[in-house]
C-alpha cells in the first residue's frame, strides 16, 4: 500500500467522517483514497486554509476530521492552524502535512516540524506504510485525549513508497455532543489569554506523555553508536548502520527529554540523523546533551539515503560504475497542451511574465523561456502589481500575470481585487484548462464536477472577474494564436485592469478532440522552423526540415497556424 493510501486507511479505521484538502504533491493521494470509502465525506477545498477551517468546524461539531496538504500548503493554512491550537477540538482532528526533501515537485524544502513547535501541537512521523496507518489512528485518539489537533508529518519517500499494511476494521464513532462555549471557541483577546494558559499546560502534559508513549521506541543493540532519528531517516540508519542502537522518535514534537537523556547515557557516542533542518539537534544541544555528530555529518540540503548515511559515518560504500555522459530530460508540456498557445504568443511578444504554480510553470524552461518569476500559489497577480508600481506604466504594458484556473481560485482572486481597488492597471491571463493538472487531474470549482466525479456548479471565471470590478474581460481559445495576440496587445495597452481567459481543456483529459497525427510534407517545408517556436515535443528538427512524430502528435493543430507555406496537413477526427 502506498504511504498515502495507508494514511487514508488509518483515518478510515479511526472513524474519520470528513476530509477536506487541497491537492499538492506528495499529499494528494490521501484525500483521493479517502473519497473511495463511502463512510467518509471527502472534498477538494479551494485552498488549504479553507480546508483546515472546514475541518475545524467538523471537529468542533463533534466529528473526527482530517485535512491534508503539502508542506507549503501549511503556510496557506497557518492562520487557522495557530489559533485552533488555542480553541482545541471536540471530535479528533488530524492535519497531515507532506514535506518534500530534495524538492521532487516543490518550490522549497521547508521543514514543517517547526510548525508543530511554533503552534504548540503534537506531531507524529511514520517511517513506513504500516506506521502511516497506525499513526493516523493514534493521532485521532491523541487529538481527543489532549483536546488539540495532531499533526502527521510525511515526507515524499514515505508518502510515495509502497510497503505491506495489515488492515483493520473501521470503528464507527458517535458524533460527540456539541455545546456552544464562547470562552473556548471565540478567540478574542479576553478569551484567548485564558486559552493560551491552557495551551502551555497541555504542552506540559504532552511532554510528560511522550516520555512513555509506545510511539517512541528504543532499540538497544551495540552501545558504541546511538542514533536518534525519525521517519525515513530511521530506515536509512537501519540500512547503513545495522548494529547501531537507535532511539526512533514516532512523536517528533514534543520531544521526550528524559527518554533522550537516558538513551544518551546508555550509548558511547550519540548522533542525530535527520533530514532537512537540525530540529532535534538544536533542541538536544540546548538541553546540554553532547552529540558526537549531527548536521555536520549529514548536511542540510536534499534528502538522505542509506548511502549518504554510510558516507557520513565513514563506512565502506558499494563501488560504482562511472556516471555516463548523457542528455538531461526535464519534464515538459505534453503534445497538445493548451498552455502552449498562450506561451508561444507571450514569448513572441517578449512580454515580462510573472508566473505561478502548476504545469504551466514549465513555460519557464527553454526554448519557450517565457516566464520571469515563480514564487508561490497566487503570487503572479500580486507581483505584477509590484512590478507596475516600481517600474512604471511602460513596463506594466509589457507585463502579464499568468495563472491557472485552480491557482486563481486558490489565491489569485484576492490579488485581482487588490489590483482593481488600488487601480493598478495590470493584465492577467488565466490559463483555464478546467482542471488541477500537475497533481494528477483533481477537479476544482471551475471543472463542473466534484471529487466523486458528480456534477457540481461550475464557477464562471469571466463573471467572477467582472464581479471583482474588472471591466475588461475577454475569453479566447488557447489555440487561437491570432486572437491571443490581438487580445494581449489590446489589453496590455489599456491602463485598466484586464483579464484574458485563455480557455481549452487539458489535452490529457480532452480525448474527444483528439485527431490523427499531422504530417509535415518535406517537399513543401522550407525549413524556416517557425513551427518549432511553439516548443511541441512532437515536432522534431530533421536535417533541413521538420518531422512530426506520429507517436507523440495528438493532432491538436496548433502548428498549422504557424506554417506560412501550408506544409503541415492531416489531422482527421480519430
Amino acid at each position: 500500500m502506498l504511504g498515502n493510501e495507508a494514511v487514508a486507511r488509518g483515518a478510515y479505521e479511526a472513524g474519520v467522517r470528513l476530509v477536506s484538502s487541497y491537492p499538492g504533491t506528495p499529499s494528494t493521494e490521501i484525500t483521493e483514497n479517502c473519497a473511495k470509502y463511502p463512510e467518509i465525506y471527502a472534498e477538494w477545498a479551494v485552498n488549504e486554509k479553507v480546508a483546515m477551517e472546514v475541518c475545524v468546524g467538523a471537529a468542533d461539531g463533534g466529528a473526527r476530521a482530517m485535512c491534508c496538504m503539502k508542506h507549503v500548503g501549511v503556510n496557506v493554512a497557518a492562520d487557522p492552524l495557530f489559533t485552533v491550537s488555542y480553541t482545541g477540538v471536540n471530535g479528533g482532528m488530524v492535519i497531515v502535512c507532506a514535506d518534500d526533501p530534495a524538492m521532487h515537485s516543490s518550490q522549497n524544502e521547508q521543514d514543517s516540524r517547526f510548525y508543530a513547535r511554533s503552534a504548540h501541537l503534537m506531531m507524529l512521523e511514520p517511517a513506513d506504510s504500516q506506521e502511516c496507518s497506525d499513526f493516523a489512528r493514534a493521532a485521532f485518539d491523541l487529538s481527543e485525549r489532549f483536546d488539540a489537533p495532531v499533526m502527521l508529518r510525511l515526507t515524499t519517500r514515505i508518502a510515495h513508497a509502497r510497503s505491506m499494511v495489515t488492515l483493520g476494521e473501521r470503528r464507527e464513532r458517535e458524533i460527540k455532543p456539541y455545546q456552544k462555549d464562547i470562552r473556548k471557541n471565540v478567540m478574542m483577546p479576553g478569551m484567548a489569554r485564558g486559552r493560551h494558559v491552557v495551551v502551555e499546560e497541555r504542552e506540559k502534559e504532552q511532554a510528560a506523555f511522550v516520555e512513555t508513549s509506545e510511539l517512541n521506541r528504543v532499540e538497544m543493540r551495540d552501545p558504541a553508536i546511538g542514533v536518534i532519528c525519525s521517519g525515513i531517516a530511521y530506515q536509512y540508519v537501519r540500512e547503513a548502520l545495522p548494529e547501531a542502537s537507535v532511539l526512533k522518535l514516532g512523536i517528533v514534537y514534543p520531544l521526550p527529554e528524559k527518554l533522550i537523556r537516558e538513551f544518551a547515557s546508555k550509548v558511547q557516542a550519540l548522533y542525530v540523523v535527520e533530514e532537512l533542518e537540525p530540529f532535534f539537534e538544536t533542541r538536544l544541544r540546548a538541553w546540554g546533551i553532547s552529540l558526537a555528530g549531527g548536521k555536520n555529518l549529514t548536511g542540510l540540503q536534499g534528502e538522505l539515503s542509506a548511502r549518504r548515511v554510510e558516507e557520513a559515518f565513514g563506512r565502506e560504500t558499494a563501488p560504482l560504475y562511472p556516471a555516463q555522459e548523457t542528455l538531461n530530460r526535464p519534464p515538459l508540456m505534453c503534445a497538445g497542451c493548451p498552455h502552449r498557445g498562450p506561451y508561444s504568443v507571450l514569448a513572441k511578444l517578449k512580454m515580462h511574465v510573472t508566473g505561478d504554480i502548476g504545469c504551466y510553470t514549465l513555460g519557464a524552461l527553454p526554448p519557450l523561456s517565457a516566464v520571469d518569476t515563480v514564487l508561490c500559489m497566487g503570487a503572479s497577480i500580486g507581483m505584477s502589481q509590484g512590478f507596475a508600481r516600481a517600474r512604471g506604466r511602460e513596463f506594466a504594458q509589457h507585463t502579464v500575470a499568468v495563472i491557472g484556473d485552480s491557482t486563481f481560485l486558490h489565491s489569485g482572486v484576492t490579488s485581482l481585487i487588490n489590483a482593481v481597488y488600488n487601480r493598478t492597471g495590470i493584465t492577467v491571463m488565466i490559463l483555464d484548462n478546467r482542471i488541477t493538472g500537475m497533481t494528477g487531474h483533481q477537479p476544482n470549482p471551475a471543472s463542473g464536477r466534484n471529487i466523486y466525479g458528480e456534477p457540481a456548479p461550475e464557477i464562471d471565471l469571466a463573471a467572477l472577474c467582472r464581479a471583482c470590478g474588472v471591466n475588461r474581460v475577454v475569453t479566447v481559445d488557447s489555440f487561437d494564436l491570432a486572437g491571443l495576440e490581438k487580445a494581449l496587445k489590446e489589453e496590455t495597452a489599456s491602463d485598466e485592469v484586464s483579464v484574458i481567459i485563455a480557455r481549452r481543456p487539458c489535452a490529457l483529459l480532452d480525448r474527444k478532440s483528439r485527431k490523427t497525427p499531422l504530417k509535415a510534407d518535406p517537399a513543401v517545408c522550407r525549413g524556416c522552423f517557425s513551427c518549432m517556436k511553439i516548443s511541441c515535443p512532437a515536432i522534431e528538427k530533421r536535417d533541413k526540415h521538420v518531422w512530426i512524430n506520429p507517436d507523440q502528435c495528438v493532432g491538436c493543430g496548433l502548428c498549422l497556424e504557424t506554417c506560412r507555406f501550408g506544409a503541415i496537413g492531416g489531422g482527421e477526427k480519430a
Partner: protein
Amino acid sequence: MKMDVVIIGVGGQGTLLASRILGALADLKGLDVKVSEVHGMSQRGGSVITYVRVGSDIHSPMVDLGGADVVLAFEQVEALRALPYLKRGGVMIVGDQKINPLSVITGQAAYPKGALDALRQQCRVLSLDALSIAREAGEVRSVNLVLLGVLCAYLGEDPELWHEAVARVVKSAFLEVNLKAFDAGRRHYEESEERNG
C-alpha cells in the same frame, strides 16, 4: 529471492505499473517488499525512476547508487543515466527504444550514438526491441510487460506466479494483451543469444 531493482524510463512509458507488478509478485511469494515511486512534476515527459526492493525485513524503500541487482531501462538515454545504480556484476535489461529529449528535438544536441555499446563495455546488458515485440503482441504500451517477461526468464522463474501478479495489478480488460506481451518477452530471452553468450 532477494532483489533490488531500479526501473527507469520516460514519463508515460509505464514504469510505475512495472514496479507495482513486481510488488504484487513479492507479496504472492510471501516476501517483504518496498516500492518507491515518483509522482508529480517529473511525470510530464521527464525522466522517471522507481525502486523495487524484494527480500526479507527491508528498511529503505530506495535502491542506492551501486545497489541494483537489475536495472530495467525503457529507453537508451535513460539506461545510460541509470548505470551508477547498478551493482557490480548486476545486469541491465534495456528496451532499446529512443525517445528524443527536448534538446534533440530542437536540434541543439544529438541523440547519443552507441549508447548500448558504451554500456556493454561496462556491464552485462540484455537489450531488445521491446517496442516492436509489444506492438506484435497487440499493444505498444505494453513495453513494460515485455521487459518484465525478460526479467522473469533471466531469473529462471516459473511464469505462473508472475502471471498472477500481472492479473492483480492490470485491469481485466487489458490482461490478455499484457500477458501476451509478457510471454513474448520471456520467449525472446529464451531464444536470444545473450542467454548463452
